[in-house]
C-alpha cells in the first residue's frame, strides 16, 4: 500500500482560466461584474433597467448564462449592446472556460463594463471564479428574508447585495431589516441597494443609485 500526497485544489483548472480572463480584462481596461441570484429574482430585469440608465454614458457588453434558450440575450440585445448567450445545456453554473469562449466573440477594445449574468442558482456559482472584479448578488423580497443564512457562501463571496422587488414588500412575508441583518451577519462588508424594476425610468426605485454606483466603480477601476 502506498500513499501519494496530492494537495491540489479541485477547481484549480477553473481558477487558472479565471486568472487568464482577469488578465485579459485588465489589459483591455474592462470592469467585470458577475451577477448571481436564484432563478426569478430579477437579474435580467435589473440588467435592463441598468442598461437603460448607463446608455450613452459608458460602453457595456453582456454575457448571458442560461441552462436553455437565448431569451435573455434577445431582451438585452434590444438595448444595442454586444451580447453573447452561453447555453449550459443543463449545467447549473458558469465556469471560467465558458466565459473565455464567450468573450472571444466580443471585441473587448472600447468595452468599459462587462456584465456576466450567471445561471440562476444560489449554490453552485459561488465556487466558480470567472475572472470578475466582483460578484453582485440579488435577493428579491418574494424569496423571504432568510436567504443569506441558507446560502452563506454566495453572500460571503459577494461585494454587493441588491434587494429587488421592494415594491412587493407589503404583500410578501419579508422584513427588509431582517434580510439586511442576516446579510450583514454573513458579510458585514456588503454594499446594499434596494430596487424595483417595474418603473421604466427607474426614478425612485433604487436603480439610479445602483447604476450611478456601478458607473463610478467602472470609471475608477
Amino acid at each position, binding site marked *: *500500500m*502506498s*500513499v*501519494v*500526497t*496530492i*494537495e*491540489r*485544489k*479541485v*477547481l484549480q*483548472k477553473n481558477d487558472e482560466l479565471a486568472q487568464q480572463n482577469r488578465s485579459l480584462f485588465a489589459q483591455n481596461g474592462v470592469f467585470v461584474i458577475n451577477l448571481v441570484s436564484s432563478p426569478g429574482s430579477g437579474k435580467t430585469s435589473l440588467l435592463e433597467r441598468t442598461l437603460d440608465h448607463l446608455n450613452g454614458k459608458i460602453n457595456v457588453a453582456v454575457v448571458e448564462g442560461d441552462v436553455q434558450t437565448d431569451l435573455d440575450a434577445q431582451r438585452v440585445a434590444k438595448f444595442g449592446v454586444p451580447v453573447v448567450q452561453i447555453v449550459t445545456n443543463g*449545467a*447549473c*453554473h458558469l*465556469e471560467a472556460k465558458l466565459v473565455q469562449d464567450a468573450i472571444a466573440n466580443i471585441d473587448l477594445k472600447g468595452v468599459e463594463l462587462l456584465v456576466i449574468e450567471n445561471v440562476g442558482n444560489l*449554490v*453552485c456559482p*459561488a*465556487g*466558480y471564479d470567472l475572472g470578475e472584479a466582483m460578484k453582485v448578488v440579488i435577493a428579491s423580497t418574494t424569496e423571504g428574508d432568510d436567504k443569506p*443564512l441558507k446560502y*452563506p*457562501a*454566495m453572500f*460571503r463571496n459577494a461585494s454587493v447585495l441588491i434587494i429587488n422587488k421592494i415594491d412587493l414588500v407589503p404583500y410578501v412575508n419579508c422584513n427588509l431589516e431582517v434580510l439586511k441583518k442576516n446579510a*450583514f*451577519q*454573513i*458579510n*458585514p462588508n456588503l454594499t446594499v441597494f434596494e430596487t424595483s424594476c417595474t418603473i421604466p425610468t427607474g426614478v425612485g426605485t433604487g436603480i439610479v443609485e445602483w447604476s450611478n454606483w456601478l458607473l463610478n466603480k467602472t470609471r475608477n477601476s
Partner: protein
Amino acid sequence: MHELSIAESIVDIVRENLAANGSGAVKSVRVRVGELAGVVPDSLDFCFIAITNGTPLEGAKLEIEKTNIVAHCQDCGVDSKVEGLVFQCPVCTSTNIQVVSGNELQVVEIEIDDEKIIDH
C-alpha cells in the same frame, strides 16, 4: 448540483497523478471539503461512485474530510471558529475578520494498493 462536475474534476486529478505513480489499484481518495465550499458530501460521494463505476477507479472509496470555518480577526489577531454562521470575532466582536479556513475543496491524497495491478 455541481457535485457531478466536482467529482469529474477529482477523477481527472487522480488520473493525472496515477500516470506518475505506477499502476496499482486506487483504494481511496481523500478530499478536503470546507463548510463554506457549497458542496454536499453525500451528493459528492454519490456522483463519485456513479462516474467511477465500470472504470479502473471502480471501488475506490471517497474519504471526505470536512473542515470548519475559521476566521482571523484583523483587529485583535485571534483565530476563532465561526459558529452558527456569525461572521464576527467572538473575542472582541469585530466584524473585520478574514476567513482562513472553510472554503477548501482539495484532493489531499490517494492510497494505492501496489499489489493489485490495474491497467489505468
